[in-house]
């Protein structure tokens, strides 16, 4: 574990690699300027809206420029954004989360007493994450998945959940493939999905504070996209409060989410699997 953690940070070394660093950071600067210049777009849908935030363009621009997408076909682009640029970008996600973290702290603190007051809701809504098992597992069985469904439907798989499922079943097991799929697909589309969902969520008729708590599910970027879009369309609750509730819920999920999955989610989905598979699981 220690050696992989060291490797994970290795790309931030600048010694002997400054041209790759220059390319990576200038590309990001270019993407940021382009995304911010376009700005937030809003398409109203009744009381809600499809919100497209600058961060969503940024993730799409980044994917398009990378060596595996357009770079795979356009040689000059591959020279601007070679594989090393993508390698440098991986630990830079963790570095660039710092300003966001500090800004969230400055939103959480002034709402401190409101958050304490809403403590029970914060804690109990963590269990709401389990609802996904009752929807996801039957659908997974109906479309012909088997044990992969255990890993895919148990939760929104961010790093800790991916870690425990992989550790329990092994990375090459069906459960491991399922959780890897959930993790990777979430990485590719999670921010875009939650950015759109946050803006449309008021259509459910639920209170913006409940929705903002739901935005926190263990991924800082998904939570930010979700709550920023929600704040944009909510007229009854202040933007700061929505953002602070979402950030608090997200922080709680990073503590409790793992334990909820380990002690409740995985046992529950295994019991349900045993009951539902004979009914819904197709023959080969």
């Amino acid at each position: 574990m220690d050696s992989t953690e060291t490797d994970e940070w290795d790309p931030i070394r600048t010694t002997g690699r400054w041209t790759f660093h220059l390319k990576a950071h200038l590309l990001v600067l270019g993407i940021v300027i382009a995304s911010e210049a376009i700005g937030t777009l809003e398409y109203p849908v009744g009381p809600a809206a499809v919100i497209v935030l600058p961060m969503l363009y940024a993730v799409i621009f980044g994917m398009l420029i990378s060596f595996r997408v357009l770079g795979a076909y356009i040689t000059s682009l591959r020279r601007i954004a070679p594989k090393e640029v993508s390698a440098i970008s991986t630990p830079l996600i963790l570095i660039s989360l710092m300003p966001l973290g500090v800004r969230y702290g400055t939103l959480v603190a002034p709402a401190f007493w409101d958050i304490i007051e809403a403590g029970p809701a914060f804690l109990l809504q963590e269990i709401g994450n389990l609802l996904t098992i009752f929807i996801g597992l039957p659908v997974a069985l109906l479309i012909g998945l088997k044990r992969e469904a255990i890993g895919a439907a148990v939760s929104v798989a961010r790093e800790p959940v991916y870690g425990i499922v992989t550790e329990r079943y092994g990375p090459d097991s069906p459960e491991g493939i399922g959780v890897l799929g959930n993790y990777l697909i979430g990485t590719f589309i999670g921010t875009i999905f939650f950015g759109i969902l946050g803006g449309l969520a008021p259509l459910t008729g639920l209170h913006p504070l409940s929705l903002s708590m739901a935005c926190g599910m263990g991924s800082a970027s998904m939570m930010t996209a979700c709550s920023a879009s929600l704040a944009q369309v909510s007229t009854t609750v202040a933007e700061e409060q929505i953002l602070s509730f979402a950030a608090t819920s997200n922080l709680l999920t990073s503590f409790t989410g793992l334990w909820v999955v380990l002690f409740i989610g995985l046992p529950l989905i295994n019991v349900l699997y045993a009951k539902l598979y004979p009914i819904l699981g197709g023959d080969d």
Partner: protein
Amino acid sequence: MDRATYAIESLKMLIIVGIITIIGNTVGYGIGIIEAIPGMIMIIAIGLVSLVLAREVPVNFPGIAWAILIATILALPFSPVQGPFLEYTERIDFLATATPILAYAGLSVAMQADRLKQISWKLVIITVIAMFGTFVGSALIAELILDMQGII
């Protein structure tokens, strides 16, 4: 990577991210670069402490959680530095801090593109359901409890 190298390289990267962020802050939110510098220096300092703590403290507590925790403590109503700390950091729009993260994230996902090929379309459907179900489940329970408490 040893402790000192990690700290120095992290600081360099934080400064680069800081510069990118305050440029985005000007383009998107019209806040002058000079005005944003003091707040960004505070953010970089907290960021460096957080990254070092995440590495040195042997609990599973990521850097961003440390950053939120430290900034929360500094910004609490009974913190002696709340006023100046909020005054300077609020000059950096919080959305401006999110855009560089996603730009790096977009560039980095290419590293995982090969693994994505093992994943069937069925898993895509189930992942979308998992994301949607988690959101709705949490929102429903939060609504119920907040309503029982009389908060909403």
